[in-house]
């Protein structure tokens, strides 16, 4: 698998990552090499094998629907880059 410049730009956009234009060819080479390594998987026949998502095949635990957490808004917002009136600020989305 060999990735082109446009592939890297598309992946970076999907991942919401700004990548320096000059660095794109290097990323294309590195990511292609990693995918080359990954493609060794194709040597194995995996028809009829069930995928394993969790090493102990655990399932999601349920708990009673009770409020157990206290309101920590002020503490959490004290480390936010920008807040106003208890709201997180981002650039204007709707004109």
């Amino acid at each position, binding site marked *: 698998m060999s990735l082109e410049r446009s592939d890297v730009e598309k992946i970076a956009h999907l991942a919401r990552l700004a990548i320096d234009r000059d660095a794109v060819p290097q990323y294309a080479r*590195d990511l292609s090499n990693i995918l080359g390594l990954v493609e060794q998987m194709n040597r194995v026949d995996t028809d009829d094998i069930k995928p394993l998502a969790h090493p102990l095949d655990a399932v999601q635990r349920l708990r009673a629907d009770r409020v157990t957490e206290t309101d920590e808004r002020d503490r959490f917002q004290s480390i936010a880059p920008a807040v106003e009136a208890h709201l997180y600020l981002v650039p204007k989305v709707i004109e």
Partner: protein
Amino acid sequence: MHNKSIVELSQALRAGKFSSVELTRHLLARIRRLDGRLNSFVTVTDERALAQARAADQRLAKGSAGPLTGIPVAQKDIFCTAGIRTSCGSRMLDNFIAPYDATTVEKFNAAGAVLLGKTNMDEFAMGSSNETSFYGPVRNPWDLAAVPGGSSGGSAAAVAARFAPGATGTDTGGSIRQPAALCGITGIKPTYGRVSRYGMIAFASSLDQGGVMTRSAEDAAVMLGVMAGYDPRDSTSVDRPVPDYTKTLAEPLQGLKIGLPREYFGDGLDSGVAGVIDAALREYRKLGAEVVDISLPNSALAVPVYYVIAPAECSSNLSRFDGVRFGHRCDKPRDLEDLYKRSRGEGFGAEVKRRIMIGTYVLSAGYYDAYYLKAQKIRRLMSQDFSDAFRKVDVIMGPASPTVAFNIGEKTDDPVTMYLSDIYTIAVNLAGLPGMSIPAGFCASRPVGLQIIGNYFDEARLLNIAHRYQQVTDWHTRAPAEFGE
């Protein structure tokens, strides 16, 4: 004081030979004097450490002390510490003061341990050499030109250099065992689910597991006893009693069946490392163990499978870093997309970006089955390889790393070569098994680690097997020349 084990320090504190404040001052002074050479700490918490030491001394005086009361430890900077910067080795979290304690930190605090500081690490635990840290590489105390391994390289170096008798680490693909091997210390990654992941910054959630790094297996048994246990705040935590790991340390190894996977002794293994492992196995035979050949036929696929699953989970976990709620935010964003892209582009280093992009790619439309599903299927085959092996043997042994510590800068230009440093450790994470590395000797003056892999929840057995070896050998007591005095 700094050459004493946790068990010896604990006895000395109880006997009043010195106080926790004296011990803590001594270690803080060592860090201040010597860590310039290693860069093993990102943050040293002097004042808080001394306050905790004073409280520990009171507890010792009252007779209500536990085995870790007054013992200084270091936390990998991936564990959230309330009121203390928790950077995860990243520019993204350079300004992040954690609002709460990780369960692990809470447990060490409750046990009366003293927090010396937060140790350096590969950025978001993604690396095998500690060179991806925003705070610069850590150096190996045995040879300052060498890497300490990663990602828990700061913890490994700090313990080897006698800055702390014990430290925490995390292991997603070998990040406790490989640096433990490269720095000549003891490290244990418990069974997936044994130690709480609450407040441990997530990299790959189905693989991440916290553990301990110490000089001896006996000390690891003490620390793991405090760290392990069920946590309702971690949905993958396992509700199962924690045995007293110190009680079974001395059990004899007569009749122990050790399996040697032939795939771990193939072409990629350095011959000097192989010689050290052979010598360690001879010691185990003398202790009454039987060594048999086994096969883990899918071993060669561990690295390829891991570099699908781990990046996939990482791309999802790291989507939380968006420049909105905490962490780095770019200057003057034009719009929301620009805010996300530039905050993440500036906040993450190159290796983290590579892994996020690989993960994004393998999960994207049209590729999911070919990569992610395929990897999960082989993951099951690898897990079955281990179950088959454990029907024949009690434990599996082999090298923790194919080579001794490499030089700083040697592998940074080629991610794939770097990834292959974890060839013997990754499969254990994919299967969720417990694994250890213990010091077994030296090759070209750099330490070699023996890996011991156990069946699920066999931590007590692993520690017992490691301890018996450490009773008849002294590799674990060797100190690097510059840091032993």
